């Protein structure tokens, strides 16, 4: 349980400034860049636009909780393999958005739909080609891994 003494605190500022979970980044603080993307109850949101007090009891997944120890999440590994980042500042948001997109299962293996579904996450370095490849590959890897798991 977490005591909050100020109703103005956004989820992003709670994570970054009070819990010191600084993986989620602040690029604009008004939902325009996606660098602060996290999953709330499995859905991707811009954490800068959510007041922390409105999320009492919610399940929040940030970039810090994605890998299992040393074992990277398939999306994280694919971002490295396809060089889906340069400066790395937007990367936590891109990865959380990609995990959310794959969960939504709306894009399939269509690069055009992946690009559209990832367009809420700006990358000023222009690593988009690698990001799209990484999302497609990770999705494929997760599907085939899922098939091996008994239902």
């Amino acid at each position, binding site marked *: 349980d977490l005591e909050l003494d*100020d109703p103005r605190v956004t989820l992003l500022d709670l994570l970054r400034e009070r819990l010191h979970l600084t993986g989620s980044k602040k690029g604009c603080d008004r939902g325009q860049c996606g660098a602060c993307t996290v999953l709330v109850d499995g859905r991707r949101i811009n954490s800068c636009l959510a007041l922390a007090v409105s999320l009492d009891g919610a399940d929040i997944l940030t970039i810090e909780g994605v890998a299992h120890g040393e074992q990277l999440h398939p999306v994280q590994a694919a971002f*490295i393999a396809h*060089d889906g980042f340069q400066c790395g500042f937007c990367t*936590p948001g891109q990865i959380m958005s990609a995990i959310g997109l794959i969960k939504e299962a709306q894009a399939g293996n269509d690069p*055009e739909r992946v690009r559209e579904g990832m367009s809420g996450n700006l990358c000023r370095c*222009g690593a988009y080609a690698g990001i799209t490849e990484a999302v497609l590959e990770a999705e494929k890897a997760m599907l085939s891994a899922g098939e091996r798991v008994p239902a």
Partner: protein
Amino acid sequence: MPDLVLSTSPAHQRHGSSIGQPLTRRDGVLKVTGEARYAADNHPPKLLHAVLAVSTIARGRVTFLDVEAAKRHPGVVEVMTSANRPALAEDPDAKTNPFMFRLDLLQNDEVRYAMQPIAVVIAETLEAATEGVALLAPRYDVQPARVGLDGGESFFPQAVGVGNPGAVHHGDVEAGLKAASKRVEAVYETPTQYHNAMEPHAIVVSWNGDKLSIDTPSQGLGMAVGRVAGLFGLNPANIHIRSPFLGGGFGSKGFIAGPQLLGILAAKLVDRPVKLVLRREHMYGPVGHRAPTRQTLRLGTDNDGGLTALAHHAKTVSSTFDDFFEPAADASHTLYAAPNISTSHEAVRVDTGTPLFMRAPGEATGSIALESAIDEMAIACGMDPLAFRLKNYAEVEPTSGKPFSSKALRACYAQGAERFGWSTRPLQPRQMRDEAGFLVGWGMGTATFPALMFQAEARAVIKRDGFGVMESGAHDMGQGAWTAFAQIAADGLGLDIDAVEFKAGTSDLPDAGIAGGSAHTATVGAAIHNAGAAVIAKLADLATNDEQSPLFGAGNAGVVARDGRLFRRDDEARSESYADILGRAGLAQVEARGNGAMDPAAAEDYAMHAHGAVFAEVKVDPELGQVRVTRMVGAFAAGRIVNPKLVQSQLYGGMIWGASFTLHEAAVMDHRSGRTMNANLAEYQVPVNADVMGLEAIMVDERDPHVNALGIKGVGEIGITGSAGAVANAVWHATGIRVRRFPIRIEDLMLPV
């Protein structure tokens, strides 16, 4: 250049296989797990939060700030204004060299541009500081703002960019134009652009007596230390800046900016550690931008399509209080072999923050105009744009007459055109449609960027356990310095990359100069290479002078360093490991330093540039005028490629910036108020993922024996040049409409159906 001689002398040859490998980023795991620590991620104990209050007017004076209201707000600790700002040892308006930019550090109540800092609120929480800023409710004495390219009286700057002459005349362009059988004269406009790195400028700062501990993103740590030392009257040795990762820079973090220095002042005022992070809108004022231009191109050709004259005149703006002039016309110095070339600049002063270097300063801005004009001239001659460029290919640098140190541009044209399928392009516009009925157009542009070098130093160590350390205070703003320099270090030390620890990103390491001008890999790479040569030379001396070494007496034959061993050059059966050499000598380690800088003799004799050719396809909705770039092929020759995976990413990023220049980004100014109307990331449009498809980058083989010992030219900026013009020319080819004001807007392309 004794260091360069060292590195090529037979006694000190080193072999390695790290350079040229497409390694993934060595900081990759940190970046994908959120563990990479950027400046604003730091939280020293007892930290306070500072937030800037910025001016909502562009010119005038601050007459009132409700400091009491802000201070009454719970959690607010202090409000820093011009009334109580701690004293500085140096006037922020002093300028003793061209790299020293005047700063707004609350030195008075004057406002000289919108978004200028006018106060800083410091509080226990970010929320309280933010609310405190709102409570200041500033009032102003407002004066009319001077805005835009016609906002003031023109003058002709003596110097543009960094000390380039404001005008260059080669031959007689008027005579050349008069003699021409065909002429093109056209005026192109480019907008104000903002770097908009994803990471806003940020600083976390702690004072400890007269010592300063700072986390802040920097493309030039040594210069930042010097600036802070000067302003605060400190010994540079007492200033420690950490900048292991920059969330993008693009030129805006080349110099420490006013807001970062205000963070240091705020910490001093309250005597507690302070974090100051710019809000996105604060990035549209005090941290630099690319100035707008209006460029006039005049070209003439003879009957065979040979250029007889090329005149490039650029008008730009600077601030009322400092000098930076976008060197747009300089793009015409090197590319095309006109016998008569003139470039010139004029400027006006307006109420804006001072413009600054932004990725490919001058080249990007000038290239889009030049490449559009070349396209228009080719069309006037009835020639294919590639054939026209080949007809006017510069075998030597036209304005200087110098030979190129290397120039594989013909190969770039050939390989790019082949890959793109350029040969089937119809000459006339509006000839191609896709299956959906969209107009399809193909355009091209030539890319060029100078191969620059600055100054850098590196320190190399070989330890008794056989491992190596390489240190240089280099900067990774995303280009991949952590990886590329480790590769160069490994080869420089004759070690496997996993046996080398590479240290960078802090100000206590040897000065790596500035990460800019596409020169960082070449400059720091040369320093690393030379430091490696020097330390291997020491090791070789130890071995060849030691009777117990299998290498004894091999001084004249020379040794080769490889895999952590020295081998006798003429007998590889005789070798000894670094560890054994040091062990017997009773030394814990050997170390040496090396420098990287341009060889002035080579620079005197040769013109040094990277080159490229970019081919673009656009599709235009004939009814809506909407443009999409569907394919881009860039072929670039930039000397030795240290890591093709990272270079591909750099080139893609540049090409995307080029497309963005042509189709997306522009700051829109309110001419009544002098304020930017779209100072945010939704309305200042940058490409999103859905805008980017079909990119290909070809790295054309090019060996340059003159630029530096490693033959590196740099790739950070060249991708923009050429690309912007290629997209603009493709839009013409699709539609038959020549748009000369960038970015191209939908309303420019509303076609008669």
